[in-house]
């Protein structure tokens, strides 16, 4: 059953902008992205919004809906009250390009800073043998659809531009954890570099990232805390500390 809803959309660019109110039709079962598209096709032909799959699999339509970072394609209009105005704004942690579209290049730069997977030299294609249980830990993190909602909500960078340089963010902590837990990866010291070069220590475990993850990845518990505990173990265990100093064993493996 169609009804009219009040939608408030942030429109503008990096120089200026404001919220604009529109009234638009919404049909049964529709998601917020559907009504944004209807506005685009009928009232604002140049309204900028990113989207691709419209099925929660590509992570393109990230925005803030009534202040919460969400995928617009997975947010039902019916989740809001009949009289409630739905307010859509661009991701706050990234520079605005236009309307609901932000410059997320920060994330692609960080991706390039994480050392790639290193396959064992002596393991030929087809010869790998891994247990299902052993690949599942990394597979959880490989579910990530790179919507960057975790990056957006993370208070280390959300209102602290100055932290961006030294902080990779939750998306890339799970990338490091995924490689660290990969049964075949040969690169050592991933946890140590997470701490020393990618800003793992700046995270103080408020779990905001886990809460917004549309893939329900346990970012904090299974990746961040898991790595932090190991880092702490090794850093503050006197025997291991000594071992690392005299070079008999690797500091962090």
């Amino acid at each position, binding site marked *: 059953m169609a009804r009219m809803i009040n939608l408030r959309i942030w429109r503008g660019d990096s120089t200026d902008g404001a919220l604009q109110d529109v009234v638009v039709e919404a049909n049964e079962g529709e998601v917020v992205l559907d009504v944004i598209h209807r506005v685009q096709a009928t009232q604002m032909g140049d309204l900028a919004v990113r989207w691709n799959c419209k099925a929660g699999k590509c992570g393109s339509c990230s925005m803030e809906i009534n202040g919460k970072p969400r995928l617009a394609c997975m947010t039902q209009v019916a989740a809001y009250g009949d009289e409630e105005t739905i307010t859509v704004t661009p991701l706050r942690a990234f520079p605005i390009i236009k309307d609901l579209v932000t410059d997320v290049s920060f994330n*692609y730069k960080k991706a390039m800073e994480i050392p790639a997977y290193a396959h064992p030299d002596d393991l030929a294609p087809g010869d790998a043998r891994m247990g299902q249980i052993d690949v599942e830990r990394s597979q959880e993190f490989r579910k990530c659809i790179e919507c960057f909602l975790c990056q957006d909500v993370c208070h280390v960078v959300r209102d602290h531009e100055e932290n961006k340089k030294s902080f990779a963010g939750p998306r890339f902590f799970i990338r490091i954890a995924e490689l660290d837990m990969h049964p075949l990866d040969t690169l050592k010291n991933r946890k140590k570099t997470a701490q020393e070069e990618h800003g793992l220590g700046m995270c103080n475990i408020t779990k905001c990232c886990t809460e917004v993850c549309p893939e329900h990845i346990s970012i904090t518990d299974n990746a961040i805390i898991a790595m932090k505990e190991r880092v702490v173990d090794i850093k503050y265990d006197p025997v291991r500390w000594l071992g690392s100093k005299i070079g008999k064993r690797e500091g962090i493996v």
Partner: protein
Amino acid sequence: MSELERHSYDVLVIGAGGAGLRAAVEAREAGLRVAIICKSLFGKAHTVMAEGGAAASMGNVNDNDNWMVHFRDTMRGGKFLNHYRMAELHAKEAPDRIWELETWGALFDRTKEGKISQRNFGGHEYPRLAHVGDRTGLELIRTMQQKIVALQQKDGAQYASMESNIKVFAELTITDILKENGKVSGAYGYWRETGAEVLFGAPTVIIATGGVGKTFKVTSNSWEGTGDGHALALKAGANLVDMEFLQFHPTGMVWPPSVRGILVTESVRGEGGVLTNSLGERFMFKYIPDVFKSIYADNEAEADRWYEDQDNNRRPPELLPRDEVARAINTEVKAGRGSEHGGVFLDVSKRLSAEVIKKRLPSMWHQFFELAGVDITKEPMEVGPTCHYIMGGVEVEPDTAAAIGVPGLFAAGEVAGGMHGSNRLGGNSLTDLLVFGRRAGIGAAHYVKNNGKNPVSDAAIEAAAQKIQAPFDRAGGENSYALHAELQEVAHSLVGIIRTASELEDAITKIADIRKRSANVSVSGGRKFNPGFHLAFDLDNMLLVAESTAKSALQRQESRGGHTRDDFPGMSNKWRQINHIASFNGTQVNVRGQALPVLPKELFDLFDVHELEKYMTPEEITKGGSI
């Protein structure tokens, strides 16, 4: 106007899905400088939507499997209209391409022995699809995205910048492939973010732009599937082969309307899901065509036993090739035996426990629960056909992926034609991307070494720039959104799953009319990230695709795979010998018949001759393939 942004590369890859990224990796590893263009952000291409898996005869689950069995299945699935050489290369090379991904960090699901697990799928004789739950496409694209980063890191250690030799240009649309002296010289386009124009000089262009689904009203494709590569190739002088063959995936969501068309993976059936109509009948038993009667079960008991014992039972008919299942669902719904919202029921809850469903089909569970309020561990899904894939595409030379007729142009993946014949088997697309993406990269590398640069002329730049500015200079013209909706309606109702001559003729007239009006599209707003402006170019591409499809479909007077004619319901062995070749003369698309390459003797002999008799003429059988 500010100065034109110019770049120069050895290879320009248009499209950053599986085929494009695989091509880029190969070209870079061959020592070339590579630019990758994507319409969206890096890593969002439609490949992420592939769910079920990648077909490769590794034989990890059933060691009877090998490339010859896979080749036979592919040819059967395509009803023998496939280019045999592409199907052969694909079947032979697919396992290596999957294993290679593992060396780049991919983590597929495992068998008990720790090998890559393989699952059953429609039309595949043995469990053959390497997979990661139901998000295999995401694993493929992420693995290759990260491989590109690995190559960039390697370059960064050696050269001044990580992006010195391979660079991703995200959110950029190519509007023209440029040629000088009859050969590719580069491409022209605009940044979606700013609307600013960009020139790429490059002696080779690899088109890897995927599909055309957005031409249709109900589709599983994202907004990017607008046939850009098909149209760019046509306009550059290449041919499109067999554009009448479109795959309507049997199971798309049908309710609520907002999600209509979104894919429901074939893995649901591979894992034991059954299709029923509103009477509760498991109707697929009624729709087993004669050519498949020997390998599909004709009763429920045998079909159910197959899940436990595949050696001694025939397969359930839910796992027939996609064209058969889609037509069957269509027939059931038309006969009034459909569900409330015009689909049929697909139920996996009776065969598998809730825990197993959530593990093997996690994104399906999620998708239905969040978007339709349906818990698939307890109740059936409502499903119906959705436009999913185009078998037709750029006519290429199989070994090099070179586009026929345009030196320097290559095409791989969905945008290339021939590999899948009249119908693609599920799982064959992901390995198609890898096999032919790699081959296109090698093909381009050879071409660059033998040909060198080919500078772009000012005249070519001027013409391309003029085209981009045009919609801004027209005031009060047509609205691109409205024209797009009209085209989708025409394609859906007149060129859809069931076709007739009169409707196709009607469609051709209507498409020509929309195309005429589209020349007068005007856009509101400025150049900065303006979707109305972007759609104006996508629309032009979709119109050329729709014209090619409608005209090819009108000529083919038979029903085969993804082309069903109500007025010619049978499959004709004479028509099997014909490919349709679409070309563009600057004004309209023309379609002509061309002889299908003849199966060589060594491939002919892989089949039981009685099976071939169902598809081939007596003369072909007597000849026994080409020598």
